[in-house]
């Protein structure tokens, strides 16, 4: 069930065992909150001022990766700007699912949130690779894909269904692996990872009835 996502410093299972014990030993906090999250959706949010008083402002970068040198990603922004993104042990990487920096390739699109460093790089707290957020209409349903129409020009987009990964939310409910309630003609919000090689989208989450 569980799969290793981050090279552990002490060796996978021991380290997880240790962290599980620590996690279960923590204080229990019960209750709901209305505060927003920092998950994949947040990549599209305005960079929020950090709540940490030591850091006044989060840095934010987006663009295509032009080169990878060690742990630094060179990114050409969409508006002619350039960024150097420094990956660290603590940087989270999302590419359809939480993964590692090894999955990032040249040519991938990227959103990154982090902290401006004195040397001009951005030390990334979180990066989202090839993330796309589409408001579209379901035009067709097949075993392994959804046919979607997106935008004013009804651009046809193929959304691939990834086993064990694609989830759906209906009417504001919890995310579920049950995709059988999708209907042709529905308006849907699709969050996924664009595949540069064939210009399709691997679907992480499809939200309908929102």
């Amino acid at each position, binding site marked *: 069930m569980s799969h290793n996502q981050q090279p552990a410093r002490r060796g996978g299972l021991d380290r997880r065992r240790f962290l599980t014990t620590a*996690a279960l030993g923590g204080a*229990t906090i019960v209750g709901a909150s209305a505060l927003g999250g920092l998950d994949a959706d947040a990549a599209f949010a305005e960079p929020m001022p950090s709540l*940490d008083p030591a850091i006044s402002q989060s840095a934010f970068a987006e663009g295509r990766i032009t080169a990878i040198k060690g742990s630094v990603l060179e990114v050409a922004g969409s508006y002619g700007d350039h960024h150097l993104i420094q990956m660290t042990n*603590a940087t989270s990487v999302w590419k359809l699912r939480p993964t590692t920096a090894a999955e990032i390739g040249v040519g991938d699109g990227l959103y990154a949130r982090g902290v401006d460093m004195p040397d001009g790089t951005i030390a990334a707290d979180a990066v989202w690779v090839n993330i796309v957020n589409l408001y579209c209409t379901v035009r067709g349903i097949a075993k392994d894909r959804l046919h979607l129409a997106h935008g004013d020009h009804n*651009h046809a987009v193929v959304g691939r*269904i990834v086993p064990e990964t694609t989830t759906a939310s209906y009417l504001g409910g*919890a995310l*579920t*692996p049950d995709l*059988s309630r999708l209907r042709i003609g529905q308006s849907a919000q699709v969050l996924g990872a664009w595949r540069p090689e064939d210009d399709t989208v691997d679907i992480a989450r499809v939200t309908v009835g929102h």
Partner: protein
Amino acid sequence: MIPLLSNLAPPVLAALLALTGAGKLFGRGTALLAAGTVLVRVLGDARRAGLVLRAVGGAELAVAAALLAGPAAGLPALVPGAATAGLGAAFTAYLGYARATAPESSCGCSARAEGPIGPRTFARAGAVLLGGVAAAGADASWWSQAASRPVGSALVVAAAAALLFVVSADLDRSWLLPLRRLRIRLFGHPLATGAAGRVPVEASVQLLESSLAWQAASPIVRSSLLDHWDDEGWRVLRFSGVYEEAVRGARPVSVLFALDLAASIDTAPSPAVRVSVIDDDTEEVVPLDLLAAAGRRSALPLAN
């Protein structure tokens, strides 16, 4: 068969050209549509592109009228046929040029937004070209053909209309979607219901983000989800963060949340989440009252 096709090509082509031509000539969105085509770059001006698109619409209407009324006016079949074929050839050449130089541009073919140029737009332009060639070879007017062989004529017209429907992306809504819906109704939904009861990690993250624990820990958490695993009914979610300590300054930490593996926002409106913060360097638990740090306020009583 060939004379049948030749003689019946004019009304079918006329219907297609009248529809697309009228849409271009009289459509309110023509100027907007023209702005999305490659014409803007060729002519250097969106207004001129709009005028050209309207002029093309007018030409299509004129050719449609000639195709329909040509035999009655004594026009040889060659004239409207050749004009149609000329239009088809021009469309194909235009599409080829647009496809080669600006593949993302709109085609502007039917005065409706139908997205980038694809195989269907080429198929339609090709159909106009071939239909024009066929119409040029007509040896009788279409109404006398229809009167002499009504059944065969009806079949040919129906087949031609079906072909044009298939190559028109903007008509999908009227036939393709109902057909796909019918297929799902008849043969069942192609997508699985998924393993019943399995809560995906994303659902656990969704629950976490709606929890008070997440709100309390948010001043420390900096990354998105870094790692997750399941252990004896618990799902552990690991984030990285920074904790400001009075003596040693900013410390890199792991923020660990443990939730019930089977809980989601549907089943747990008020989730119980275990939180702990581990110093990444010393691997020690950071003793921390998150609720006090976040400045907990008691909720107002709910109205009944």
